[in-house]
């Protein structure tokens, strides 16, 4: 077991180093002088230019520069944003909870709808319901979510006036950040109506972000259930005269969920991609919007730090999923 853990964990190291290389070279691949790029359009005087060159170590050989970069990284120093002058890591930390909150709600939505839909579709195979679920799932999978978001705004915010168009909470509320998750923080605060406001801001973005994972989960659950339902032990369970809910709920679902859980773990990358678009549409103050604005301002340290941190998060989640998978499935653990 320990061997499996260590082997799997050690595979992460080269990938992480690779991501540091991507982040390191990003700012050097941008055409032009990196200091001038960082200084932005206002330009910079020669003395300060030389000073900054020395400070960032641009006068040293490339390999030494990479060494310096890694050393700073080890100390948690990812540089400062050009536009706000704040440390990149601090900005990331303050915005990340908003993205996580959105992502968790999106996955919950996808699970709550996708699992039952997939299970029912498998149980009523080739019925109208099954074809409907599969058709909708393929549509969801093909959905340009940036358009889906605009459509939902058009319907629910503009036509019906049920939900706000953008942001995380109405401006009249000031919520002291405790956990960073507004749904929890508003409950902790005494402000009445704050929770409802936060929730109504969250619903549409969560649905938009959850659409692609929902489609994937419904499809995956259906095919995993179909596979399990054909196994011998299912026939045995039926022959024993167990009630249908027990057969489906305990015997089938538990085994069918293994591949589904893996797929959910793999959706993390997809969620970040979606978050970039969803946050842009709904002006959701998270990592995705932060990165897109950084591009607009040519704020390269933010971009550089953002890639590295997001890459690290995705890698960590993938590793956890793999380890969890190894724990529940001995065949994986003992492979090789």
């Amino acid at each position, binding site marked *: 077991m320990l061997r499996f853990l260590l082997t799997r964990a050690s595979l992460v190291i*080269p*990938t992480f180093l*690779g*991501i540091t290389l*991507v982040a390191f070279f*990003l700012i050097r*691949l*941008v055409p032009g002088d990196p200091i001038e790029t960082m200084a932005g359009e206002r330009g910079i005087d020669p003395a300060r230019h030389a000073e900054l060159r020395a400070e960032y170590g641009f006068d040293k050989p490339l390999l030494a520069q990479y060494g310096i970069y890694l050393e700073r990284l080890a100390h948690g120093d990812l540089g400062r944003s050009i536009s706000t002058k704040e440390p990149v890591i601090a900005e990331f930390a303050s915005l990340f909870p908003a993205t996580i909150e959105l992502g968790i709600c999106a996955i919950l939505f996808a699970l709550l709808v996708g699992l039952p839909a997939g299970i029912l579709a498998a149980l009523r195979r080739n019925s109208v319901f099954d074809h409907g679920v599969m*058709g909708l799932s*393929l*549509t969801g*999978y*093909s*959905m*340009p979510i*940036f*358009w*889906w978001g*605009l*459509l939902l*705004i*058009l319907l629910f915010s*503009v036509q019906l006036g049920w939900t706000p168009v953008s942001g995380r909470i109405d401006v009249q509320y000031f919520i002291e950040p405790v956990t960073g998750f507004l749904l929890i923080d508003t409950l902790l605060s005494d402000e009445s109506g704050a929770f409802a406001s936060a929730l109504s801001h969250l619903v549409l973005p969560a649905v938009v972000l959850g659409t692609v994972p929902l489609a994937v989960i419904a499809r995956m659950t259906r095919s995993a259930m179909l596979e399990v339902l054909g196994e011998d032990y299912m026939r045995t369970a039926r022959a024993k005269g167990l009630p249908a809910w027990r057969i489906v709920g305990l015997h089938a679902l538990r085994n069918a969920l293994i591949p589904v859980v893996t797929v959910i773990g793999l959706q993390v*990358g*997809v969620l*970040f*991609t979606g978050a*970039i*678009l969803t946050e*842009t*549409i709904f002006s959701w103050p998270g990592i995705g919007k932060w*990165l*897109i604005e950084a*591009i*607009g301002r040519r704020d*390269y340290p933010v*971009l550089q730090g*953002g*890639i590295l941190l*997001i*890459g690290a998060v*995705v*890698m960590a989640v*993938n590793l956890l999923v793999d380890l969890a998978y190894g724990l529940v499935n001995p065949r994986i653990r003992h492979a090789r």
Partner: protein
Amino acid sequence: MSAELLDTPAASAAPAGPPHPLAEFWTSFRANRGAVIGLALIVAVFLMAVFADVIAPHPPNLTNDAAFLKPPFWQAGGSLTYPLGTDAIGRDILSRLIHGARLSLSIGVAVVAVSILVGTMLGLVAGFVGGATGIVIMRVMDIILTLPSLLLAIVIVAILGPGLMNAMLAVAVVVLPHYVRIARAAVIAEKSKDYVTAARVSGAGPLRLMLSEVLPNCAAPLIVQASLGVSTAILDAAALGFLGLGAQPPSPEWGTMLADAREFVLRAWWVVTFPGLIILVTVLAFNLVGDGLRDALDPKLKR
């Protein structure tokens, strides 16, 4: 390719011998109603792109000062001159969508062509040569796969600068690992088989082994991935266009059109609705065909 396929069912009627593989493929593909619908939609979008100059009622970038944000013809104030209405500077939305088909299809095909070519070569090399070269190739692919696809594409565009060509290049890089992995896995599965050994013993060089012995036998999964890849490419390029990093205005690229339309979401639903709808339909069509191809080409996955 479709014309060739359409002709084959007649041949399959011949009683003697097993059916031609293409005929068998077509029978299997035709049984999947979704895939046939998808194929029909793709043909429609393709024809739209080819004959854009003839079909489109107006030039895509012609503005009309007298017709800003005109609604589609069935709404009060709309007219058949502009069947799907006009945008904020009086351009005909239908004409722009028709011309946009050229861009989106070229994007899809070009991205897949580049990534399948480069990806297959890298995969063949990684599978055949193995060793340090193989490890380096696969590690780089792992890194690309770890970073969220749109984020990586954004970074590449940030380095190269926004524009359609750079966006296409970025998307091609992002989807590359899928082809490399498929090709490598297929090579590893095939290369120990007897026919490859036979070819090697009879003096075939590594290039010949790779390209004319193993490659044709890896084709099925690559074709399926290519069809699904076109939809990913169109979707990702549109997303970059929507973020202002892909094709630049006034290009009638569908994602770019949506970006322009965003600020009018409150007062002109049609400028937002139609470009997205056509992206959805096109992407869905390629996904339907991809699913159909997989079922038809991969007997193991047959229902």
